[in-house]
């Protein structure tokens, strides 16, 4: 018994990797697969908990639901040591620049789970001080609905992230990453915001500037043809 058996049993499907030797002493695989497996099984989440959802997040990490079963129990409160951010709770305008700073401080590759309707869309707080969804300022990979979502839903979200890591997908392209302070930021109506962003992008294009939502140095999956920049609003 050794680490190779673990690889054979859990990591590699022999039909997909015919180069695994039958006797089990030697396997050949790609570094890529091992790295993916490692990333998948040791996600270090950072809870950006602000409100009610943070309480349910605590329930997720505590004894009953036990996030450790998915290899993600090492909660890091420093963004520099984390690769998955749970945005748990309402993000208000005052908190916006802080969320953005913390997201920027996380090393790549990084993932974001938007927990609950407040983080996803502002929820039922459509008011003068509440951000209408964190995707106004940072990209989101998995949205979890619910107010607050049950811990089972969060487990599903973590598994979705794991699946995507195994498939080699990159985190979602920045949607409105650099939108903070752009025209249209602060519009409560998503359609109005989308229109304002489109107008802003076309004005930037006329000046020869890239659209605000695109960060140039970020390396995305090279095999896939680059899709047209799309603005989620």
């Amino acid at each position: 018994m050794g680490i190779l058996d673990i690889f054979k049993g859990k990591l590699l499907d022999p039909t997909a990797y015919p180069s695994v030797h039958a006797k089990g002493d030697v396997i050949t695989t790609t570094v890529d697969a091992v790295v993916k497996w490692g990333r998948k099984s040791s996600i270090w989440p950072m809870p950006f908990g602000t409100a009610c959802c943070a309480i349910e997040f605590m329930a997720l990490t505590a004894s009953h639901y036990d996030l450790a079963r998915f290899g993600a129990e090492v909660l890091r409160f420093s963004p520099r040591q984390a690769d998955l951010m749970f945005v748990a709770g309402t993000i208000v305008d005052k908190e916006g620049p802080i969320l953005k700073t913390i997201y920027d401080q996380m090393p790549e590759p990084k993932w974001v789970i938007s927990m609950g309707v407040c983080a996803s869309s502002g929820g039922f707080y459509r008011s003068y001080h509440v951000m209408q969804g964190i995707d106004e300022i940072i990209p989101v990979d998995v949205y979890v609905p619910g107010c607050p979502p049950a811990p089972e839903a969060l487990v599903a979200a973590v598994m979705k992230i794991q699946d995507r890591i195994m498939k080699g997908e990159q985190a979602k392209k920045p949607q409105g990453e650099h939108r903070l302070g752009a025209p249209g930021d602060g519009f409560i109506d998503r359609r109005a915001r989308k229109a304002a962003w489109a107008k802003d992008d076309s004005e930037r294009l006329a000046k020869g500037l890239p659209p605000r939502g695109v960060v140039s140095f970020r390396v995305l999956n090279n095999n896939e043809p680059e899709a047209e920049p799309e603005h989620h609003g």
Partner: protein
Amino acid sequence: MASTPEVATPAAFPQTNKPVARILTERLGAKVRKVDDWRGDLAITVERSAWVEAATLLRDHPELDFKLFLDLCGVDYLDEREDRFEVVLHAYSVTHKHHVRIKATLPESDATIDTLDKVYKGANWFEREAWDLYGIKFKGHPNLVRILTHKDFVGHGMRKDYPQSKRHVLKEPEAWLLNVPKDSEAMVVNIGPSHPAMHGCFRVQALLDGETIQDAEAEIGYMHRNFEKMSEARTYWQIIPYTDRLNYCSSFMNGHGWALAVEKLLGVPAPPRAEAIRVILSEFSRIMDHFVAIGTNVVDLGAITPFFMLFRVREEIYELLEECCGARLTVSYVRIGGLANDVPDGFVEKCRDLIKRCHKYTDEVDKLLTRNSIFVNRFKDVGALSKEDALSYGWVGPCLRGSGVAYDIRKDQPYSGYEQYDFDVPVGTVGDCYDRYLVRLEEIRQSLRIIEQALGKLPGGPVIVDDKRVALPPKADVYSNIEALMNHFKLVYEGILPPPGEVYGYTEAANGELGYYIVSDGKKFPWRVKVRPPCFNIYQAYPQMIKGGQIADAVAIIGGLNIIAGELDR
């Protein structure tokens, strides 16, 4: 003969004979404009020139003795009244057990009033809030700046002419909260808003000399999600889900308080079975809240075992709530005039079983912590606050009782039938972290005692009041007869229509007195809802408490205060 008919003489207010009104009118004379006693709430309107005088009199007169500062807020009447703004002060006397509401009106052209900062320590932040949300200026206030909204916000959000959803974006957070002298060698440490010890989103900036905190300043508003503004465009029912998200560690109790406040406004009490079930679930919520407070507090100090133990049994209380109403955390189980539906079969047995489990785990945590020397060293004589300061800041609940004041609304002003149950109010002696921990631990046991008694005499009958103006008719009737259908339609479409007036409803929530000050104009939406948040007062004292202490103690103190962001910033 007085020049205006509004001028006060004791004979002009025959509707009340409360000593508070008598003494105030005797002492202030014509400066008392109006005395009102409606639904048991005494409200006295004074001239704004007598504002500080009235508050000082309330605090110092031995027959009044309003030492406990509760709440100060603004109200905007727009065109409804001659003077647009009103400032409202709530206070309580622990010795005489009475509440009072003092009001002063301010015209729009000159919305200024003297500050109460010297009278009550707790008034400081409340006045900043009134400035932030209503633009009311407080003359002589030491630091009248925005508190809940951010520095780039334009306008005053709670004013009636401010659109509900007009946002202003903040690009750069406020960098400095403290005034650091130029040649100072002290180090500035910024804690929060995203910091594990800050439980959500509070921010503290501390000036350090070695490990000693020389100066500290707190900033809040990172969870200001406008409960009060949203309430002004929601019917009395629709506000229930919003109340769940105030103190989300014990959601049920907020709804309970809201329902009682609206029932007070309507004059419609809930049936006895509903009240008994409310008491049972409220006490379970209190236990859950204390579990979170103790569990997370010791996690911050490095002990994770109690957290796992307490969360295990907390999960079982969640299951009970889930069986009752389908939701774990944000329950929305109460209705105005009762409960949404009756409890499921086997509720009593399940509760009895839970009581045993709660006892077991509480005892284990007690064994792990109470005599643990590491824990005791971190907690004893740390963050002590005197009785007088605690009252002046407006502390309530376990924190005030930790400081040695036996004020528990369940005993002093019983509601929902708490007078039938036999329980003790634990009180601390020194007012340090250890006292607050012991008070919480004992309150868990007392709550279990209350639940046991309530289960023993759980009355039968309906769980919602039989009143067409308040409660929806049963679903079966709605589908089978036209009268019920019309009642249902009208109630859903028009909402509950309370009489015009104002009440202050208060309950003992897990963190202390949770009050709702409701102003109704007789329409389906409340004109103004002000939450009296226990955490707001408690957190206000925090920068003062950590000054002179060690930086590590600041972490121990904040966990023990159990500040909940949703309630703090609303």
